[in-house]
């Protein structure tokens, strides 16, 4: 069942998008479609375009960065090296993964191709997962932007980093204990072998790196674009106040903030500024939930994860991260 859903996920999303596009064309067509030779667009659609293009233009450099970084690892880092650098003992390896973000300060769009490559190269899954979750938060760029955004509550940056570390480490331990099967997508194995064949045949050729970059650009790009489109639509049609009104009790306000973080799909370098704009209507611990959850999981990264890992694994990851972020931020002393 799950496998089937996963198989058709792309089709389902695509059909929805095409349907939406068709509805849009007909709807705007019935209004004054031509006036002279000028198209008349409704203001909301123009706003939607602004958001959509803006997210895409912002994310493309970071996705390319991730793609090239992953191509760099592919070409220059051997499996032997990855295995040697990663500590054997999980007690050291999991914190090691959590602080890897300080070495590679990548945001949440860029980290998925990188983690995928590192896992393919032999990094243990639990370390990869810890890096995946903690990396986009526990790094100097994101923490300093949080510090700037919350000029009046500077300790929130510290809480953000610490809570993210705790959650990432717990998920890492859970992964170590409960995930036995290789979570990478079917066919990923043959792809690795395939890429290695190319790497051997064409080692040192720049064009090979670029060819793979094009493949990955289209591979990751489709998920990124779908996520950006949905997020742009929500930004135009859903008002923040409506969401804020739902969140009155601690649990619902945390859930609302996490939901917003998920749907808006902001870059982890910028989301602190949004969180700061909510500081008048939400308690600091709900803001913390927003700040921790968004970089770990959001709409576009979920789609990107689904393009990398098995459906079942992504479901488990999403479920455990959601529950943990909710529990930890509710209990966290802010």
């Amino acid at each position, binding site marked *: 069942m799950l496998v089937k859903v996963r198989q058709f996920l*792309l*089709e389902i999303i*695509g*059909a929805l*998008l*095409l349907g939406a*596009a068709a509805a849009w064309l007909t709807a705007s067509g019935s209004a004054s479609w031509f006036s002279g030779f000028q*198209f008349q*667009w409704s*203001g*909301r*659609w*123009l*706003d939607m*375009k*602004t*958001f*959509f*293009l803006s*997210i*895409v*233009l*912002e994310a*493309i*450099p970071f996705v*390319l960065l991730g793609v*090239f970084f992953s191509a760099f690892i592919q070409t220059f880092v051997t499996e032997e090296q990855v295995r040697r650098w990663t500590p054997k003992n999980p007690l050291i390896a999991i914190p090691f993964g959590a602080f890897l973000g300080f070495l590679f300060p990548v945001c949440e769009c860029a980290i998925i191709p990188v983690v995928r490559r590192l896992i393919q190269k032999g990094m243990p899954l639990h370390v990869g997962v810890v890096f995946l979750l903690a990396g986009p938060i526990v790094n100097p760029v994101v923490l300093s*932007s949080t510090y*700037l955004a919350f*000029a009046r509550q500077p300790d929130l940056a510290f809480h953000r980093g610490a809570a993210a570390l705790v959650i990432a480490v717990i998920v890492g331990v859970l992964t170590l204990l409960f995930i036995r099967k290789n979570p990478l997508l079917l*066919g990923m194995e*043959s*792809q690795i072998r*395939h890429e290695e*064949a190319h790497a051997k*045949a064409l080692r040192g050729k720049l*064009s090979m790196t670029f*060819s793979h*970059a*094009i493949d990955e*650009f*289209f591979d990751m790009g489709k998920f990124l*674009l*779908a996520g950006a489109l949905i*997020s742009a639509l929500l*930004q*135009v*049609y859903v008002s*923040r106040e409506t969401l*804020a009104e739902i969140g009155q009790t601690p649990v619902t306000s945390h859930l609302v903030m996490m939901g917003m973080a998920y749907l808006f*799909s*902001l*870059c982890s370098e*910028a*989301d602190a*500024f*949004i969180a700061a*704009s909510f500081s*008048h*209507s939400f308690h600091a611990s709900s803001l913390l939930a927003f700040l921790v959850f968004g970089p770990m999981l959001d709409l576009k990264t979920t789609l990107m994860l689904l393009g990398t890992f098995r459906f079942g694994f992504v479901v488990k990851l999403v479920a455990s991260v959601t529950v943990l972020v909710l529990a930890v931020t509710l209990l966290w002393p802010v």
Partner: protein
Amino acid sequence: MNQSSAKRHYLVRSLILLGFTGLLAQLILTHRLGLYLAPRLHMLSYVTLGILFMLTLISLRQVFSGATAYDCDCEDAHKIPRSLWRSVLLYGIFLLPLSMGFLMPDQILGSDVADKRGITLLSNDVRKLAEVTGAANTPASGESGTAGNASSHVGETNAPASPQKKQEAAATLPALSDAQIRQKFSDGGLGDFYTDMAVSLYKQPVISLNDKVFLDGLTTMELYAKEFAGKEIETLGFVYRQPDFTKEQFVVARFSVSCCTADANVFGILVENKQGSKWAKDSWVKVRGKLEARSVDGYDMLVLKADGIETVKAPKDPYVYYNYDTPAGN
């Protein structure tokens, strides 16, 4: 999979990459990138343009020499969609931003988005806005005195406080030396940045809240609301109204962008002017007037009593940015 089908896919991909390169180049050359990205990401976009250009060239090369570049028996791994339906979906979603970028006109974010976002006023508290406008109605339309309704303490602090503040500010202003002004703003432990900012703003006879200092200046005045009451300022923004505003009120607002417009926030100052309803929503205005303090629930809030409002053209760069490292740039 046969060779010609693979080549067709490479051709479509090349065209899409070419489209992205063209779109980005067009945005940069026509100076419209600022409508989508904050300046600090522009450099990154230039680099991206270069990389996209190279990717386009390499992808085009694959079209002509696909067989030699990928001479292997592992076509499945190249992620070329297997059916026509999948191809349409895959390339459709890449064509969407391109067609939108080329065909749809640009629009500056305005009141519709501000409605969805909620606006941050000089009070730093949106929920208080309704109370302020409610309280302001009484003294503005009728004679000042007691507001005499539910929010009585608002009305009571409101009217007497502001003239007093004005006089105080006007009287002490010329006598203060730099050091004294500095002293005025150094308490509160809000850091050197805001102190520097406050001093540099306070020294101006008419505070010019221009694009460069809009956000930081607004934050500073909000932190030191008491001290800035009675000062004269001049600023520029688009007209934004909420349903609960009186006819004399509107907000002169700006969107702040920290990375891309998806993270845009609205900031503004509540303006009051007898002819306030004359200016259409989303039109750009230059406003000049005196700040007046209102106190709502213990918050000091500044309202701009405008005496000069003029319509202006929307600035080339409509958004404002935080600018932490140059406090006294103006």
